[in-house]
């Protein structure tokens, strides 16, 4: 193994780290000079943060717990974006390896552990999707029903979902359909503003306003504010 390490090019190691870093930078706000006052984390986030700190110290049990807590929604997200089980597994696998490697760089004041891992998975999934140039096909295949927004949460779903998932789904279900659709395409579609507007056949300003209103309502519904 040490042989492998010594043969592992430093440039490649740096490049991989940079790729992960760049992917994370897109969401982690590393440009911020000073951390802003953030809302107090809830109990779930506190536990996640503690586990992440344990992982940073090399605690594999904590890592396994993090995996158990996050892998479901992360895998579902990856699968929703790339629509390929094998690729979704690779994405989740690589993301968790990054969590293991970079846990020490995680800063709770810049976001929750879950948001960080979601960013890792989403960026990888969107990159893969774009590289395969399957956006058009995926969009054509996708339908609002896919997200389960349109339906009430069934008993089975409720049983299968975590409390957090139920809460988010309930919050999302209160959004107007056009706001839900815009958020869905923005989050899972990996499209630009213009592409979303083109796909929805709406003016760009309308799409931007829908995303703004939808995300602010979701924030209020989930109480992600002081």
């Amino acid at each position, binding site marked *: 193994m040490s*042989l*492998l390490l010594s043969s592992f090019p430093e440039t490649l190691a740096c490049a991989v780290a940079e790729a992960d870093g760049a992917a994370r930078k897109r969401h982690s706000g590393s440009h911020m000079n000073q951390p802003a006052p953030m809302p107090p984390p809830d109990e779930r986030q506190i536990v996640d943060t503690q586990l992440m700190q344990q992982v940073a110290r090399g605690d594999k049990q904590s890592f396994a717990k993090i995996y158990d807590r996050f892998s479901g929604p992360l895998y579902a997200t990856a699968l929703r974006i790339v629509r390929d089980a094998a690729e979704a597994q690779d994405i989740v*696998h690589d993301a968790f390896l990054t969590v293991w490697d970079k846990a020490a760089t995680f800063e709770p004041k810049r976001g929750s552990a879950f948001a960080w891992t979601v960013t890792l998975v989403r960026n990888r999934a969107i990159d893969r999707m774009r590289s395969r140039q399957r956006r058009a096909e995926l969009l054509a295949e996708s339908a609002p029903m896919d997200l*389960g927004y349109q339906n009430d949460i069934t008993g089975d779903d409720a049983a299968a979902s975590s409390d*957090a*998932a139920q809460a988010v789904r309930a919050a999302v279900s209160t959004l107007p359909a056009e706001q839900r659709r815009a958020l869905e395409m923005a989050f899972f579609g990996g499209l630009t503003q213009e592409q979303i507007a083109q796909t929805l056949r709406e003016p760009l300003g309308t799409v931007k306003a829908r*995303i703004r209103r939808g995300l602010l309502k979701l924030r209020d519904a*989930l109480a992600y504010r002081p």
Partner: protein
Amino acid sequence: MIDERLEELASLYALDLLEGAELAQFETALARDPSLQALVHELRESASALARTAPTAEPPKHLKQRVLASIEARQAAATPATLTKDNKAIRPAFGGWQILPWMAAASFAVLAGWFAQRYSASQAEMTLARDQQALTAVELQSVRNHLEAERIVNQRQIITLSEQVANYTRQIGEAQQKGTATLRELADTQQKLANTTRELAAAQERANGLDRLLSDARAQIAGLSREMQAQSDLANLKITTLASMLNNSPQALAVAVWNPAKQEGVLQVAGLPALGPNEDYQLWVVDPQYPDPVDGGVFTVEATGGTNRVNFKTRQPVREIGAYAITKERKGGVQKSAGPFLLLGK
């Protein structure tokens, strides 16, 4: 206070939808504004929560084993087997009385080590494959970055071209408006030109009328002038009566009227004897400037009455008429008469 525009940019930023100059401007504002940072944090958490809305899909059980095995392999590659991630050596305490169990344990450890070596070898192969995969991913990322850069450049070119097209369209619109205005001006000018042409034709008609009036006036003036000239000529006419100088024809009489301006005259004769077949009467004009009478031409008379009216001109210019004389000469007249004078008048 964060306005709607910033809220919109923050929402797009939280979903990775900002690009290019818009992204750079927002990040500059974000770095300066703690309240904006807080908003981005909240929106990013909200956006991440959308992951929980994906259709429920549990990852396969072996994925966890795969992840944990990769962690093990990575940890083994990073440190000796007896070191923790914190690089602290495990230092077990040994007691002499425990030698047998420890020998068994050592044997087990050797056996475990062998299996661990085999496991590590297989993990190393897996890691190598993953590293190759990572290398490929980096290369793909590089290609993606390059394509993204090209896309941005092309997008800017498209924007520039679109602006140029809009500019040209605006210029064409302005030119069309100017053209329309010019056409209107041209139509007005043509209308004015037509009016002017009509006015010019009317003026020309009036001018022609005036010309006609002028011509008439000139004609009248000419007539008057002629009348005045005639009156003047009449005043200058020299009228002379010629009386017979012969006894055989005492009734013979002639009157000569001479116009000195025209150097011509009219001779009216009556009562002259008839001429023979080879004879002519010849008129002579006596001018003091010449030594001899000047030839005034030949003429005949009616056989009955001896009358005639003759227009005559002198052979030489006459300044002053001293007298007229008429002689009978051979047919055609002579240059110098030998006489005698039949009629004579002063």
